[in-house]
């Protein structure tokens, strides 16, 4: 029994890390641009395809592929900001509806380009790590390890650089930030690019575990939604707490009850939190 609990705990943490990568990018985009980005999951999908192209078509090493994915995603984000989102900066609802359209374009674009069938991704590592009774497949450990490194890197960028300070200032108050010399014309595209890059890296990291297809974006988008609603839109500490919580709830409910029960429990939780405390567990009161 205690073995099952420990195993669920580890699985929950792995899930939580990945949900966190999705949710931070999502909540960052909302914080900076006030856009609820329904296309966020499609950037996860694009990241996974980038990894597939890099590793199998071009034969690049996994690390180089990940780096390229980040660069490509930031550029893509800047482009999307310019072409799609820029006119809707002050209009939350229109921006959100536009992101629905963007999601359709990206998903069906991938469908035309890559076809509907799931594609296998070569395993990056094989074998398992053993700690006593606990078993962790090395592929999952690798994903977890890189995920944690990316998250720490992002944290440092956000908290200890000039650029990060500018982003945080924008989240707090756009006008005051602009008055103090934060350059909106650079920060908006880069902020969106960074948020999208986190989703793309999550996709590239998950590709070896779950395979790649044009439809893989829906589930992570849903998780990102749940996490940011629980944690509070625009709140990064809230997202961190909620992502871990969600990972653990899912892993424990599906170990001890069933997978579909896990989904229903989390959605009921989301509805309850939205009704009782719409600004989320750690969010600022604004709803």
């Amino acid at each position, binding site marked *: 029994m205690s073995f099952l609990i420990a195993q669920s705990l580890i699985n929950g943490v792995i899930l939580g890390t990945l949900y966190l990568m999705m949710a931070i990018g999502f909540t960052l985009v909302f914080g900076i641009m006030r856009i609820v980005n329904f296309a966020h999951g499609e950037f996860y999908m694009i990241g996974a395809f980038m990894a597939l192209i890099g590793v199998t078509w071009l034969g690049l090493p996994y690390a180089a592929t990940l780096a390229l994915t980040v660069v490509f995603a930031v550029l893509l984000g800047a482009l999307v900001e310019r072409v799609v989102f820029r006119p809707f900066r002050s209009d939350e609802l*229109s921006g959100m509806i536009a992101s629905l359209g963007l999601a*359709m374009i990206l998903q069906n*674009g991938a469908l035309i380009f890559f076809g509907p069938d799931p594609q296998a991704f070569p395993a990056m590592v094989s074998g398992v790590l053993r700690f006593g009774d606990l078993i962790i497949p090395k592929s999952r450990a690798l994903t977890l390890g890189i995920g944690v490194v990316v998250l720490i890197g992002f944290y440092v960028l956000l908290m200890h650089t000039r650029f990060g300070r500018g982003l945080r200032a924008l989240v707090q108050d756009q006008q005051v930030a602009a008055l103090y010399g934060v350059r909106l014309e650079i920060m908006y595209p880069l902020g969106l690019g960074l948020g999208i890059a986190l989703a793309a890296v999550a996709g590239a990291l998950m590709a070896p575990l779950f395979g790649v297809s044009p439809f893989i974006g829906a589930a992570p988008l849903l998780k990102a939604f749940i996490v940011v609603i629980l944690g509070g839109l625009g709140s990064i500490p809230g997202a961190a707490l909620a992502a871990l919580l969600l990972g653990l709830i899912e892993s424990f409910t599906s170990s001890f009850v069933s997978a579909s029960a896990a989904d229903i429990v989390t959605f009921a939780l989301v509805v309850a939190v939205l*009704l009782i405390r*719409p600004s989320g567990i750690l969010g600022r009161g604004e709803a």
Partner: protein
Amino acid sequence: MSDTSVTSPPKRAGLGSLGFALCVALLALVPWFTGSVFHFHIAIMVCLGAMAAAGLATIAWVGQLSLAHGAFVGIGAYTCVLLVTRLDMPFLVGLPAAAVFSGAVAYIIGTPLLRLRGVYFVLITFALNELFRLVMLEFPSVSGGSSGIAGIPKISLFGWELRDQSQVYVFTLLMLAAVMALLWTIRRGPLGRWFSAVEENMALAESSGIPTARTQNMAFVIGSGIAGFTGAIMAHYIGFISPVTFAFQLSVSYVIILVVGGRLALAGPLVGALFLVPLPEFLRSAQEYQHIIYGVVLIIVLRFLPAGLTALPGKLSQWRRSGE
């Protein structure tokens, strides 16, 4: 909705409206000119899309955007189908029951839900739509599970079964006309003024003595009831439903119809459905691009015509004047 460039319903109901009504009437007759079963099918789908979007429009008139509209269509569809197949009720009992039950569900969840505004309301309705799908999948004895319910009997009125597409079309067209007439009456009456007051400025409406919470809930109940009504007709026309039929995608398609047509205009849902539902048929050769085109149309309309296609004639004459 925060869109300020949108004007309230145009008062000059003169030549423009008459011309529009004439165009719609002519378009409605097209299937009879061609006589093709396929065109009748498209026409029925246009009517159903317009009807559901009209329900969504009612909710939009108080400034809220629901992403749970597909679920309410589903609630109505399941209500009617279960009444007809399990309890042997006639369709004409199931149809109003579907509208009433959807409306009742909206009434119960509306009060706590509508405290949320803007994107928060969108998010919770999104979560509820997902919850509806998951819960229905959990109860296959009711919903048929992921394989759904097939072989739903055709629409029958007083024992007279509508076998032909053209008969179904006449029925659907009449129902759509009834729904539009209901909305037209609401907009002209005191309730319509409350709706637009709440949409334009909630605080001002509240301080002018309008019960804003009750007004919003009323719009939500009417809109969701119309969704349930549509669902019942849709289920008996298509003959198959499953929880997946009413997933997120359906809700999104209604949002697209409404936004492209015009969020605040009475004719918005009609124009949106007339433009978007037949669109894939004209693009037969490029069918795989259909959804991409939907997405592009949505973004372009949002960007350049935030009040939807119904605002296009006004915009055009504005451009012409400024061009002189």
